[in-house]
């Protein structure tokens, strides 16, 4: 049994499908897809009551794009057995370290996978993508634990979050303290990992002062835990374009964009949520003053309280114990919105209400990205059409302010995809029911047919008109205000 990262197995924009490919390709099971559900980061495909999961993201101009696919398009793909692979950080808690250091090391070994997909060369050293290291893979028993998989590697990533240095009392040498520093780094929209740096007080404190959230670091060589003796962390000095690539990752939330509680939901759930880690999307209303406090085990730390608000709740307390989070928030000129992943909520007996506390698991995304920001006029869109016309399934997203100048609901709609001579005048539109689908899979299950609006319209502005434009079936439903009944 071997594991491959199959790039573009599904050729229509699904970035990476990690597939378990049997040794004999003939025995590859052909999966009939019966239903699927979309959310921002992942596409869930259901079949035979099993959930298959396909990694699903698109980078356009360094920004994360949500991408929709029709059922027809999927059904034409041969989906091999897909293993549950989600990009999860190893979200370690402080208590994980208090046990023996060996158990941590074992954890790392078990979760390492090497898939032969080498990182791109950069300078003198290889950069391994976190994606390829496959952190946090669960549900898979690995049988490729070769030495190669444990080779040390370098990664480059943007620092999503960083904690204040901590120390634990060493069990090996009683009376001394070991210092540690946690980073969460990310190098692609779907993959991020938690790194722990161990070392002497000087090393760790030096590291902590050198890096702040938003810096791009080279972690050399890559290991889950970075120790003073074997590893090094330095600021990344790559070409500007590359740095921008990483910077944009800072604004991509680490969770699906619909996976959050409104503040009122938290209060309504009350003690049911006590101690749970949840995600919040809220506006920062007020940043309180940082106060010095002493913890139970006698260490000095800082405590800062933020007031959050959203449309359901005027004020909700978020407590930060390491001051750096508040700093990073107040630095950005317009704070407005924060997406807080994995914040611990608890019932505060004193205030008689719920409060949230950021802990080591928490990642705060300031001003989560708005995916589509480019504005085009019609002439520019026409220009784009020509530019992208030669590509297979060209996709570009943008906003256009235009007039609808033709909207004929009685039209007998054709796909009207542009065909090109060098493609043999073949229609390459995967959304078209008369087009590409029949080329791949002429036998379609009747249960796969869906009924949807197919309306084309013209849009115009002062620079010209585009005719025809395809109106997305769900948008058509919205515009017409009439839900389509399934055709029986």
């Amino acid at each position, binding site marked *: 049994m071997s594991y491959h990262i199959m790039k573009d197995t599904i050729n229509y924009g699904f970035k990476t499908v990690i597939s378990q490919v049997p040794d004999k390709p003939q025995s590859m099971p052909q999966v009939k897809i019966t239903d699927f559900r979309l959310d921002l980061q992942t596409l869930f495909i259901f079949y035979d009551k099993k959930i298959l999961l396909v990694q699903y993201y698109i980078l356009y101009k360094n920004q994360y794009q949500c991408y929709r696919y029709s059922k027809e398009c999927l059904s034409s793909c041969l989906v091999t057995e897909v293993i549950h692979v989600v990009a999860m950080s190893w979200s370690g808690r402080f208590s994980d370290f208090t046990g023996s250091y060996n158990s941590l090391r074992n954890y790392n070994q078990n979760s390492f996978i090497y898939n032969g997909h080498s990182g791109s060369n950069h300078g003198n050293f290889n950069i391994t993508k976190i994606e390829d290291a496959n952190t946090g893979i669960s549900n898979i028993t690995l049988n490729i634990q070769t030495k190669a998989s444990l080779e040390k590697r370098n990664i480059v990533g943007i620092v999503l979050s960083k904690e204040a240095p901590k120390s634990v009392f060493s069990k090996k040498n009683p009376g001394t303290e070991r210092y540690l520093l946690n980073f969460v780094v990310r190098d692609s929209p779907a993959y991020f990992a938690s790194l722990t740096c161990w070392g002497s007080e000087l090393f760790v404190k030096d590291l902590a002062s050198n890096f702040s959230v938003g810096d791009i670091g080279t972690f050399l060589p890559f290991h889950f835990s970075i120790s003073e003796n074997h590893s090094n962390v330095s600021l990344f000095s790559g070409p500007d374009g590359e740095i921008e690539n990483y910077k944009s990752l800072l604004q991509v939330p680490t969770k699906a964009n619909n996976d959050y509680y409104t503040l009122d939901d938290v209060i309504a759930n009350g003690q049911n949520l006590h101690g749970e880690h949840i995600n919040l999307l809220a506006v920062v209303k007020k940043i309180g003053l940082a106060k010095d406090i002493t913890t139970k085990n006698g260490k000095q730390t800082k405590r800062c309280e933020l007031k959050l608000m959203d449309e359901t709740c005027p004020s909700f307390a978020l407590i930060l114990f390491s001051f750096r989070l508040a700093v990073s928030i107040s630095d950005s000129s317009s704070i407005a919105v924060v997406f807080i992943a994995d914040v611990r909520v608890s019932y505060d007996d004193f205030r008689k209400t719920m409060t949230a506390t950021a802990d080591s698991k928490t990642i705060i995304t300031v001003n989560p990205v708005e995916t589509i920001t480019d504005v085009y006029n019609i002439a520019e869109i026409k220009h784009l059409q020509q530019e992208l016309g030669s590509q297979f399934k060209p996709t570009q997203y943008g906003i256009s302010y235009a*007039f609808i*100048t033709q909207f004929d609901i009685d039209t007998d709609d054709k796909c009207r995809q542009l065909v090109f001579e060098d493609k043999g005048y073949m229609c390459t539109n995967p959304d078209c029911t008369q087009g590409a689908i029949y080329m791949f899979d002429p036998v379609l299950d009747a249960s796969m047919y869906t009924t949807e609006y197919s309306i084309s319209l013209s849009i*115009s502005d*002062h620079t*010209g*008109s585009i005719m025809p434009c395809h109106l997305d079936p769900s948008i058509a439903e919205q515009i017409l205000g009439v839900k389509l009944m399934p055709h029986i």
Partner: protein
Amino acid sequence: STERTSRKAKVDIDNSLHVISTSIRGMQHWSKYKDRFPMLFEVYGIIDSALLRDKTCTGKEFVLRDEQDSIQCIFYEIDRQLPRLIRGQWHRCVGNFDSRRGQLKCVSVRPVTKGDERQMFKSNVAMVENYLQQMTRSLPEP
């Protein structure tokens, strides 16, 4: 060679429908290029007359006035009726300019609904003006 470039410029003009947001004066100006490319106008103005039927009894006529100019408008009630419009209020009209009769044939008339709509329209007018000037620079004045 100058002749060749000017001919090339003519070819470059997109001859699909252009929807031009402009003032009444702008509409009178840009409609000179009518035979170069098809156009439809969007203008904002105050209705400055009563709404009366025309001689043929198929259309309704009114006067639209903006900051500088005023113009006769007509709306033919072919597939729908004109709603009751209030004199003295700002309205948005979309239609074809009939330069022979100096009349705007409206296909849509509605009151200005949002407060900031006219402000947005004004900035749009400036942008459209700029674009059209660039575009028609190489064309001979008709």
